[in-house]
């Protein structure tokens, strides 16, 4: 189906790549676009991952429309019902019910909502914090750089889960507390990456030229340093989002994440864990499968983005 695009993309990948040439066809791509498109179309697993991610995000957004049963509704007459296709299953509970008669399928869909909400918000916050501090550290150098980078070193020497666990133990469970804590523990990687990028381009001629022309530090930071940091930041975000999703689930599983009344995948698995030995495997297995598909899809997309946007890393990895 995409053969014509792919075939065309191949032609621009020839020995003339990178050299200025006549755009003889109007839909010719730049080498970067071409690489992104080419690697995307040549990998079925990436396409599948994008499809899975879109499906899950759409389900999460449309949750109130597609969910058959209220996720927090407890129906004590329908406790521990197996999935619909098994013996004793009821068609209204597609993936069965938990110990208190809550619908597993509805909890998964609403849980995806919480996962995506927590992940996007906290990653966005840590991105803003890390990006600003990284820019400052790379541009200002000297005292501020050492201060920020020592903080980064300390933060990175401890596993995220450990820090998050301690914070949540002090503050107690809560959705917004958790978004805050996850944002605070995630900033260091961004700061380190952005500083590295800034260091590598701050001595470039065009930055020097901008300085000589009298542009202020704010303009230089935003116009040159920030723009060049976008690619590594996107790649890092594709790693951070699944990490935060799993962290949220883990904290909620331990009872230190979202409040027990919030539908969350981690909490669903924790409830399923309580009935593990009564044979009700569906209450813990299905929420985990949903989590795995969500993080797996983002991981695949992240790998592809890294290969496509940073060809050097692909060569280094031999792919």
């Amino acid at each position, binding site marked *: 189906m995409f053969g014509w695009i792919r075939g065309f993309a191949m032609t621009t990948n020839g020995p003339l790549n990178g050299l200025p040439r006549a755009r003889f066809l109007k839909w010719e791509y730049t080498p970067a676009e071409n690489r992104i498109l080419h690697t995307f179309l040549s990998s079925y697993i990436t396409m599948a991952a994008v499809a899975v991610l879109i499906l899950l995000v759409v389900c999460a957004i449309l949750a109130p429309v597609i969910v058959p049963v209220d996720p927090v509704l407890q129906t004590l007459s329908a406790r521990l019902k197996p999935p619909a296709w098994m013996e004793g299953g009821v068609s209204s509970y597609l993936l069965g019910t938990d110990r208190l008669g809550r619908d597993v399928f509805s909890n998964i869909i609403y849980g995806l909502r919480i996962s995506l909400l927590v992940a996007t918000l906290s990653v966005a916050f840590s991105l803003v914090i890390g990006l600003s501090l990284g820019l400052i550290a790379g541009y200002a150098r000297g005292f501020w750089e050492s201060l920020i980078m020592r903080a980064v070193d300390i933060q990175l020497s*401890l596993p995220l889960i450990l820090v998050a666990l301690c914070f949540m133990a002090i503050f*107690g469970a809560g959705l917004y507390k958790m978004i805050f804590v996850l944002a605070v523990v995630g900033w260091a990687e961004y700061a380190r990456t952005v500083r590295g990028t800034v260091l590598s381009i701050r001595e470039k001629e065009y930055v020097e030229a901008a300085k000589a022309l009298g542009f202020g530090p704010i303009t230089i930071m935003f116009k040159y340093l920030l723009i060049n940091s976008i690619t590594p930041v996107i790649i890092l975000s594709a790693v951070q989002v699944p990490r935060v999703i799993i962290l949220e689930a883990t904290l909620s*599983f331990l*009872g230190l994440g979202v409040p027990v009344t919030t539908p969350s995948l981690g909490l669903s698995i924790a409830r*399923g864990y309580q009935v593990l030995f009564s044979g009700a*495997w569906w209450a813990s*297995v299905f929420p985990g499968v949903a*989590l795995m598909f969500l993080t*797996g899809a983002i991981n695949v997309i992240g790998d592809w983005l890294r290969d496509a946007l940073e060809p050097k890393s692909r060569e280094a990895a031999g792919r």
Partner: protein
Amino acid sequence: MLHAAGDPVAILMPPDATVEQIDQMRRQLGLDRPLYVQYGRFLLRAMKGDLGVSYYHGVPALRLVLQRLPASLELVVAAMLISVILALPLGIWAGLRPRTLLDKSSLLMSLAGISAPPFWIGIVCILIFSVELKWLPSSGRGTFAHILLPAGSLAVYRLALFIRLIRAGMMDVLSQDYIRTARAKGLPERFVVYKHALKNTLIPFVTIAGMQMGSLLAGAIVTEKVFAWPGMGRLFLDSIGKMDFPVIIAWTIVTAAIFLSINTIIDILYVWMDPRIRHDY
């Protein structure tokens, strides 16, 4: 901090305790004093190595934590062994034959291992090996069979990570000039792969494996909870539930000390393995 999460006395005392009993308990634990007095006392005692007595267990908190340390270390070391022993052959194998079916399937498996939440892997392991097959016990510590499930499920993530790492490292090293030289010299392929390529692959691997030691210890907290493993992590989680602050503090200090020593050992190992770094010091 002590007042942020609630009142430990309210949890310790039975619901029918009188006001006098509650006050007495609070005095006994020193929780009636102002916060700065509590903090000052804590610092003075901590310098002498006394981190306080557990509110709940009534024994010194540090001793309580250290008693649980061997169980946690056992779990972490077993998980590390499992992941390294399995990852080395699989990673080398995949790295030597990129783009083959085996390479692709090992990558796909490692993707699943990286994407699945570790505690859920533990639950699935219990379901398969304890509930369905009834091969292995699902909780507790004691015999060799007890450690297989918790260590195995803790190892899955590292295993997946290590396979990817060794594979990428092997492929990188094998394309280097000195490998071509070694082959041109007519060295047997086995010698090239295991002596020249593997050695150079292992240098970055040791650093990352060492850093994973720390994150294994952190990950073990959740695994200990799932498998009711009597380690430090479970003590910590239980203490959070009971607001047993001396134990929480003792756990934090012991964990920080372990992390410091792990990081130091990695640095030393790294210099020992790669003499080029020594010039920086």
